[in-house]
Every structure is written in structure tokens, then in C-alpha cells.
């Protein structure tokens, strides 16, 4: 992998955008890399725009705050693009050359001429995954869409191994210690846990979801 990979995740509040970033950062640290993770600095409200950022590197990471120039962009909900529910417009603003975009949508979204031209000029690679549908089908709750997105991510990058991701997931939901990204994510964690009768079930279903997501992601030629 390149020395530094900066990732921007955009979605709607309650989708687990912040949680996904924290799990990915933990997985990176478990893989012996360095990472910093932070959310967009706003009042988090469910269905309002939410953004989080992950930096992964083999060297010390000094930069703080929002990732303005991402190597990877993950879009957790079509409305980020179609309704402009985003803090960053257009959704690929700042994307670096050869950058990757992963979008959660049941079918490719209509991009206009200019958008396609800009993405082509960057040699960007665009992927789609129906993460919400997979989450509902396999984990039985759309709260797991973020896990499907992480599964999709590891299918098209070698940032972290699946094992590291699973360990980070177990740490997040399995431990007795509260994993705090923010007060509201802590509350949603409790909701998520209540959807699974047993913690083991939560883990098993989410691991199955990661597997399914890996094989379901599809590249869309720009």
C-alpha cells in the first residue's frame, strides 16, 4: 500500500459512518499500522449529513481534522449525492488521482457529463454495493450497512486484513468497555446490541455480511 491513505466517509446520521471509521482505524492499528480517526465536527443527528475521516499510514500522521484530499471516498447513502446531504460538494471533491469511490446504492446513480469527465480525468475507480439491502438480508438490520461498506472496502483495497477487521469489530461490540466515539454513537450501540439476542450472533452475522459484501461489490466503468 502507499505510505499514507486518507479516507472520507459520507453518509446520513445513524448509518454508522462514525462507527465504521473507528472500526477501520482500530483494524489498521491491529495490523501494525498507524491511524487517526475523527468525525465531522457537527451536532450529530439521525438522518442529517454525517462525515468521518480515517488516516492510515506506516509513518507518524501529523495532519488533523477533516480529510480535504482523500484517496478513498465511501458514500453510505445515495441521498448524499442525489439530495446533496453532504458537507462536501460535489461528493468527490478533493479526490486524489487513481482514487477510489465506493457508493452504497442498489443501482448506479446518474452522473452528469461534467462529473463523469472529472472522474475520468482523475483516473478514479467507481464501485457500487447495495450495502443496506445486504445488511437487512444477512444481519437483519440496516444498522449493519456500515459493516457491509467495510467489507466492500477490503475487497477493493489491501488497507487492512479481514481478520484485523473482525477483531476490531469484536473489540467494538464484544468488550465490556464502552467504545466512545461520541455520546450519540454510544446510545446507538446499545440499540444495535438490543437487536441481537446474543453478542456471538451479532459477530457471526456481521462476519457473514463482510463476506457477502466482498463478493457483491461491483466496479462501474466511468
Amino acid at each position, binding site marked *: 500500500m502507499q505510505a499514507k491513505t486518507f479516507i472520507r466517509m459520507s453518509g446520513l446520521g445513524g448509518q454508522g459512518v462514525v462507527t465504521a471509521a473507528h472500526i477501520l482505524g*482500530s483494524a489498521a*492499528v491491529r495490523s501494525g499500522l*498507524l491511524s487517526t480517526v*475523527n468525525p465531522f*465536527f457537527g451536532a450529530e443527528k439521525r438522518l442529517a449529513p454525517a462525515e468521518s475521516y480515517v488516516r492510515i499510514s506506516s509513518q507518524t500522521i501529523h*495532519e*488533523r481534522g*477533516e480529510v480535504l484530499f482523500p484517496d478513498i471516498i465511501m458514500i453510505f447513502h445515495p441521498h448524499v449525492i442525489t439530495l446533496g446531504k453532504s458537507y462536501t460538494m460535489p461528493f468527490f471533491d478533493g479526490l486524489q488521482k487513481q482514487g477510489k469511490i465506493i457508493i452504497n446504492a442498489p443501482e448506479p446513480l446518474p452522473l452528469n457529463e461534467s462529473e463523469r469527465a472529472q472522474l475520468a480525468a482523475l483516473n478514479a475507480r467507481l464501485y457500487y454495493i447495495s450495502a443496506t439491502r445486504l445488511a437487512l438480508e444477512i444481519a437483519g438490520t440496516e444498522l449493519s450497512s456500515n459493516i457491509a461498506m467495510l467489507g466492500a472496502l477490503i475487497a477493493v483495497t489491501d488497507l487492512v486484513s479481514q481478520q484485523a477487521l473482525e477483531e476490531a469489530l469484536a473489540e467494538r461490540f464484544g468488550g465490556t468497555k464502552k467504545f*466512545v466515539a461520541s455520546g450519540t454513537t454510544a446510545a446507538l450501540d446499545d440499540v444495535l446490541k438490543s437487536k441481537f439476542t446474543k453478542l456471538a450472533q451479532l459477530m457471526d452475522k456481521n462476519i457473514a455480511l463482510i463476506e457477502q459484501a466482498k463478493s457483491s461489490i461491483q466496479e462501474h466503468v466511468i
Partner: protein
Amino acid sequence: MITQKIVDPDYLFFQSERSKMFITGSEAVSEAIKRANVDMAIAYPITPQSESMHLVGDLYAEGYLKDYFRGENEFSVMSAVAGAAMGGVRVFTATGGPGTMRAFEMFPTWAGARLPVVCAFFTRGVNSPLTIQPDTIEMAYMLDTGIMIFHAENAQDLYDMLLKAFVIAEQPEVHIPVGVFADGFFVTHTRDEVSTAPADLKLPAYDPYSSPVPVMDMNNVPLRQMRDPFVMKSNFISYAAHASWQQEVAAAAQRARRYIDHYLGGLVESENPGADIMIVASGTAVSQGRAAIIAAAGEGIDVGLLKIKCLRPFPTEEIKALTRHCKAIIVPEFNRIGWLAREIKAVVEDNSKVVDGPRVFGGMTMPTEMILESIRRCSA
């Protein structure tokens, strides 16, 4: 029942085994307080501080603290903290932005009453329309309240500075409050690696009778403060009492220097100190500066860094000495007014070489490129 072993501060800070945790700044607060042998904490929610005091509440529930409650607003919380400190216990709280402003009247009284309160401040903008975004403007207002001011660069600093703040604040010849500042969100909500001491160790308890002023417990003298109240009198004795006390509080901060040197390794820290261009910064701006220095090196430009860890007492001599040789001093800041640039200009011998900025405000992240631009202009 929690069992922790009391150890010498030097052992806890410098000799004990360290382990790495991948945690947010808010969690770093909790890890520090867990080892700080704090008696009481008082909380009030405000973004971006709330998570830290939730976690301190969890520590109370687990038995690490003896008392904890939510006050009714920041002014009352800071007042209750003062009452607790006057009653002789080690007490902690945290706030930020509008909370700092709401409580503001209390900070000079903490210093004046010689209370060794440790308070974390997570900076946030204070303008209208309302903002919850990071912005360090409140620090400008806090600089001359009489409290000592440390500024953490990241979660590691926050953990270290909080723990050490208790030890520095409680020295009998110091015994004034310490505000440990960290940039809201950039530190509080950022997950990063932090190395910590074992959780079964803690600082020695606070000794209330080490205070240079009487503890308000009716278990020590004097029972009467004065024969004639000078509070609202206009006479020479009154003026002299107030004037000498203000000087004494300021002197207490100066007497803290040797403890800050010992525990924090100095009021400042430098990187590549001989360079012609120096970045002088505190807080998150230091991290952005470090990234800019690496980028500048890639362009063949040699840049050094002076990180200010302690703003009160102010490292006047250190800044003078470390910037005397250089041609340009760049002061990146996360506020509109440039209070740090003002402070630097007031102490360097030739203040025409101080570059006023770059600055971002309103919550913006400072792109490394912005500092790099300033560097390029200075080297041209």
C-alpha cells in the same frame, strides 16, 4: 472495589511500564483521571466536552472517584468546584467554548483563592450565530485570569498534561489552578495512539493542609480572617492588600516553572531549532506545522518548530532564545484574532519577522498547504 497502588508521581510518569491504547481525546481524559486519585468531579454537558465527563462519570460509577454529579450550568459547576477545593479535596471538571464564557467570572477567583483546581477546556467558537466548531478564541480571554494554561497538541499530551497538572498545581508554593486546553474535536473526537501507565497505579492523595491559605473546614486556624474588611473599602491598606495579592498569584505561576520543566520537560519543545524559518505554535496548529515541515523538506526548504506547551506562565526567555537566529517566525492559529502572534510579537527582539498567520477560524481544518504557502513566501 477498585484497588490501585499509590506511587510517586515520578514513577507514574517516567518509570512505570507504558502500554499503547488507540483512544479518542475524551477517552484520554478518562485514562488520566482514572490514575489521578481524584476525589470529586462535577459535570455539565457541552459539545465537544460532554464525552469526557460522561466517561469520568463512569469512573465514579466504577469506584475510582468518591463523588460526581451534574451541576446546573457552568458558572455553578465552577463555583461548586471552588467550594470542593476550599473544602480540601482534589476536584476535576471540564468545559469549553460558551461554557468557558458562562463560567468566566469564576476563573480569576479560583486563582485568587489559590485553589489547585484542574480543569480541562475543549475549545470551541463562541460567536453568534451559534457554532459548535473548533476555534481557540476563548484562550485569548483566559490568558490573564491568573490560572496556569497548558495547551495539548494531541490526546497523548492531554493525558500527560492532565495528570501532571494535579501535581504541579498542588505544590505548596504554586497552589493555583491549571487549565489544560485541547482543541475541540481535533483532539477530543480524534482517535489516536496514547501511551499510558498501568491502570492499577495512581497519584498520592491531595494533602489539604499543604495549602498556603486556610482550608474551610473549621479544623484549622485562623478562625477569623481580619479585623476590618478591606473588601469594599477605599484606603491604602485595601489597595496594598489587593495589589500584593495579585502579584503573589502571578509569582505563584512563575514558581511553577521548575515543576513544569521537570514534569512536562519544559514550557516549550523544539524541532530542528537552527532553521531560518521557525513555526511557533500551540495545540493542533503544532501538528499541522509538523506536516508542513515535512512537506517543505520535500521542496528543499529547511523549517524548524517551536511548540509552546505552557502559555501561562509564558515562556518569554525560551521563545527569545530559540527565535533569535531565524529570519521568519510563522504563527499558524485556529482563531481569527491571532492571540498567539500577538504574544510572540510582544517578546521577540525583532517583531517585524513575525508572520501574522496563517489562520483559520469558524471550525475549519487548517490545510497543511496553507502553512506551506507561508513557508514558501518566507523562503523566497
